[in-house]
């Protein structure tokens, strides 16, 4: 999917800058937001092809809540969601293993920060081609 539009929601401007540079180098169009509210607004307005979310933004589980909100919305539920976090697990339950669970963690891929540019690009490419084929991420 050439020129696909990707949304990054993260409260860390430096990290946004990094991800943005990696994605823009591959000709993706990047839109950014720094919190859940701004993220939801921009996603509705910009209709990106993929969203990259941080787990812990302002509040503990902003990223989780946002992913649930996205998958509940009939217009947005087909948009693949990639989640990034600096804390892989909480209370011993790995988040990664629950990725894709429609109620607990409705995201398509869960990755640990920091992420290698190659890995990120490969995942993005895979999710976008899945979306093109099936019309959905999960």
């Amino acid at each position, binding site marked *: 999917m050439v020129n696909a539009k990707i949304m990054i929601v993260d409260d860390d401007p430096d990290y946004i800058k*990094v991800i943005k540079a990696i994605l823009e180098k591959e000709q993706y169009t990047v839109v950014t937001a720094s919190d859940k509210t701004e993220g939801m607004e921009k996603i509705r307005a910009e209709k990106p092809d993929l969203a990259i979310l941080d787990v812990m933004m302002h509040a503990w589980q902003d990223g989780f809540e946002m992913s649930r909100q996205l998958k509940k919305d009939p217009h947005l539920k087909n948009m693949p969601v990639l989640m990034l976090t600096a804390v892989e697990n909480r209370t011993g339950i790995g988040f990664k293993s629950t990725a894709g669970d429609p109620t607990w963690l409705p995201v398509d891929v869960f990755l640990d920060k920091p992420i290698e540019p190659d890995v990120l690009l490969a995942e993005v490419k895979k999710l976008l081609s899945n979306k093109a084929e099936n019309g959905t991420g999960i």
Partner: protein
Amino acid sequence: MEPVSENIRLLKRAYWLVRLRWIAIVSVGAATYVSSNLLGIELQNAALYSIAILLALYNLIVLLLLNHFAKKGNEIPHVAVKKIINVQISADLLILTVLLHFSGGIENPFVFYFIFHMIIASILLSLWDSYLQATFAVLVFGLLILLEYLQRIPHYCLRGFAPTCLHRNILYILGTFFVFATASYLAVYMASYISVRLKRTERAYMQANTLLQKKDQIKDEYVLRVTHDIKSHLATIQSCLGMVVNKVVDPHDEQKVEFVDRAYTRTIKLTNFVKTLLKLTQMRLNDKLEIDVFPLRDTVHNAVAAVRTKAEDKSIILNCDVDSSVDTISGNQFSIEEVFTNLLLNAIRYTPEKGTVTIGAKNGMDCVVIEIADTGIGIPADELEDVFDEFFRASNARKFQKDGTGLGLSIAKYIVERHGGKIWIDSIEDTGTKFWITLPKGSRQFQAT
């Protein structure tokens, strides 16, 4: 220790009673056999063996009843199990009396076994119920020896054991009965005393355990929060440097310098975060705070002088108004000055250009009241109660200023409270924030918290 519900505990005790009774049943049979066949004591063997069989049947019924309740799990009716235990103990007392009747009555030394029942009752039942059981024991045993004395029921002399029949010996009867009654009540009194204390201790341990588990959870969340904050910085530093090292950005591109710059700034932030965290931990671990009596005016002026340049950079008017009556306070001057400096820096940070920041101090009843006010962005009303929590940063503060550890106010609160003072806040979003601090005057004893 896993907390067990009171119902389950009670049921377990009821089972214990059943197990004890199996031992008693076997003992009755064995004792009857040994006494009559080996020792040649004259006993009502048929009656005693029959009672043992009846006792076994009765125990089986109780066991089935308890199994029925056990299936209900946590739904076990508390009152029903308690009643079963009460009835069991009464029935045991009655059966022991009947056994005694067929084996010599007052002549049989097994009369002391009533004491065991009193101890069991004290462990399993409430104090009131235990005394009732003791009264019941005294009554049935009293009735037995009375009826035997009056010859309303037959007395089976324990020939081969007691030298003579004693059921008509009034002095012996009264003496034994007196000792029996007092021993029963004393047994209940003593066993209950220990039992109640044990139960209280157990409850205290359970409460402490719950509290510890809660604290442990808070600590876990704290560690997770700290780990997240540290790893976020590290992840960004690594990613920024990765852009350069892995040549994602062109080596001749200006972006290269920008990513290195960002990584550098983040290392400074990370160091500051770790330093602040260490400081907070050290303060908590350090019980001693060096206390002096010092003039508050100087401390306020020092704090104002330390932040003046920052205020000027943003064209913020910095006012200082210490009432002439304000004298000395006792505390750690360095820490207090740090609190003022931090609150002033916070006020300047979250106040837009050309705003006003004011610090004032005046005398209260037995304390000095310090007020720090600004015309800044304020704090949303629903977030006010969280501002002193560690790592908390108000939602609008995050937007206004990206940087901040969320630890500054926690440290301020900690220092003020260790001085026996108080700190509180009032704020209106988009209008301003006001902090009040009270610190004890003069030489009041420093409180170690």
